[in-house]
């Protein structure tokens, strides 16, 4: 959902002096980097595809993905012909809850370099969930 235009706004436009704090970047090199180095960025993405995670995070990701599939199937079944029923509404609400949790986790993983379990594992390095695994992205 991140708009590419605002990112280009950061790198491609020369900053007006005094308006915004920050270092002045020569616009030409930034534009070059953004517009013409997509291939190099793709390469960098491929190289970083195998990620280091805590076991707890990998487990949570897999659990949520599987839960979504199961809950959607349950909801489709509960609502088959009974759209106005309580059971139907509750089932779709569960789907929304789990989808939201997965979306949060996905965004959290995409944005920050550290693992979401970092605050927990820093204090409990011996916990089972804090074993390190390597996953494909």
């Amino acid at each position: 959902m991140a708009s590419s235009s605002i990112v280009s706004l950061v790198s491609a436009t020369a900053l007006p002096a005094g308006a915004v704090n920050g270092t002045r970047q020569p616009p030409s090199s930034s534009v070059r980097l953004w517009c013409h180095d997509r291939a190099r960025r793709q390469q960098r993405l491929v190289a970083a595809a195998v990620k280091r995670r805590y076991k707890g995070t990998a487990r949570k990701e897999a659990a949520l993905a599987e839960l979504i599939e199961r809950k959607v199937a349950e909801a489709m079944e509960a609502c088959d012909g009974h759209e106005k029923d309580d059971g139907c509404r509750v089932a779709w609400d569960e789907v929304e809850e789990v989808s939201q949790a997965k979306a949060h986790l996905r965004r959290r993983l995409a944005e920050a370099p550290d693992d979401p379990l970092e605050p927990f594992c820093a204090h409990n390095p011996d916990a089972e969930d804090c074993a390190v695994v390597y996953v494909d992205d």
Partner: protein
Amino acid sequence: MAICSAHTITSLHSPCTTFTNTGFGQKQVIFFTSNRKGGRRHGGARSCFQVSCSVDKPVVIGLAADSGCGKSTFMRRLTSVFGGAASPPKGGNPDSNTLISDTTTVICLDDYHSLDRNGRKEEGVTALDPRANNFDLMYEQVKAIKEGKAIEKPIYNHVTGLLDPPELIQPPKIFVIEGLHPMFDERVRDLLDFSIYLDISDDVKFAWKIQRDMAERGHSLESIKASIEARKPDFDAFIDPQKQYADAVIEVLPTQLIPDDNEGKVLRVKLIQKEGVKNFDPVYLFDEGSSISWVPCGRKLTCSYPGIKFAYGPDTYYGHEVSVVEMDGAFDRLDELIYVESHLSNLSTKFYGEVTQQMLKHADFPGSNNGTGLFQTIIGLKIRDLYEQIIAERAGTPAEAAKV
């Protein structure tokens, strides 16, 4: 954490008297100093330094949004305005929904579910239903935090769907309660110093949920649509009515600049600000109280398609007087952002370009190029201003009480 302020009291004749409980729950310490070498101010006068410390009494903010809780974009912008990065509590439950930064603590109101996932299934109620939430506990704990006491808040685990053992929350400077029902209960509503409602229209909600969920294996276009429609009756009955109580509503609608746009990329966003709210001066364009329609793109500023359009004016919203600032379109370049910022008034910025700087800091957040990011950032600055005003008021009162 306590805020301590020291006051000097000079008295020419009488010695310093001790002050007992002023009724603000403050502890006071008096230091007596005597003038050596007759140096000081009134030659022979005694100076008393009075230090009074008060336990942090947080400013409480409420945010209502359908997206549920957690690390939502608005919260991250808000905590960023106050400075410091927000992160989950260290060493605690890894599935905790709470976010803590230096100045701010954000809690998720899902933690006050009285029924866990199984319980709701049995009773046949959704999470949107007030019957699934413990408003008594919510009120007690928000009241306790507001008085400066720590609370043991339950944790609702969104992965397992169960209620986990509670976590300890210390009173911060700013306490944000985020969720589906911050303004539902009247007692909790009275505790809020400021409240915000994020009102997303159905078309935009549908577009956003598609973007969010289409990558998931289990989801399809039909399932996403069915999910929204199934939740709609409960949402309209229980969540939507809260917007009449909010001090600020951010309403997100489809754009009017592009005919038949259904991608939800360009948005029309309205910032509806209630008049007469304590410590809150609404943002305005050009002239407060008049109706303005403004297209910034022209000779001084060139914009790309579809451009930007602003509107400002007074209005009534559910029987209250409000001021509405509206932005339709998208920012494409930095100078558009700065140009717009320089023409808005009452932004509560500390320096020229602060709004632009905050937006650029989080250029990768969704909504950074349209009114959602702009108004969320502005509200963040308004809340900071509100906080500083409240703190200044509180600091002013002990000095008043000390003048005997």
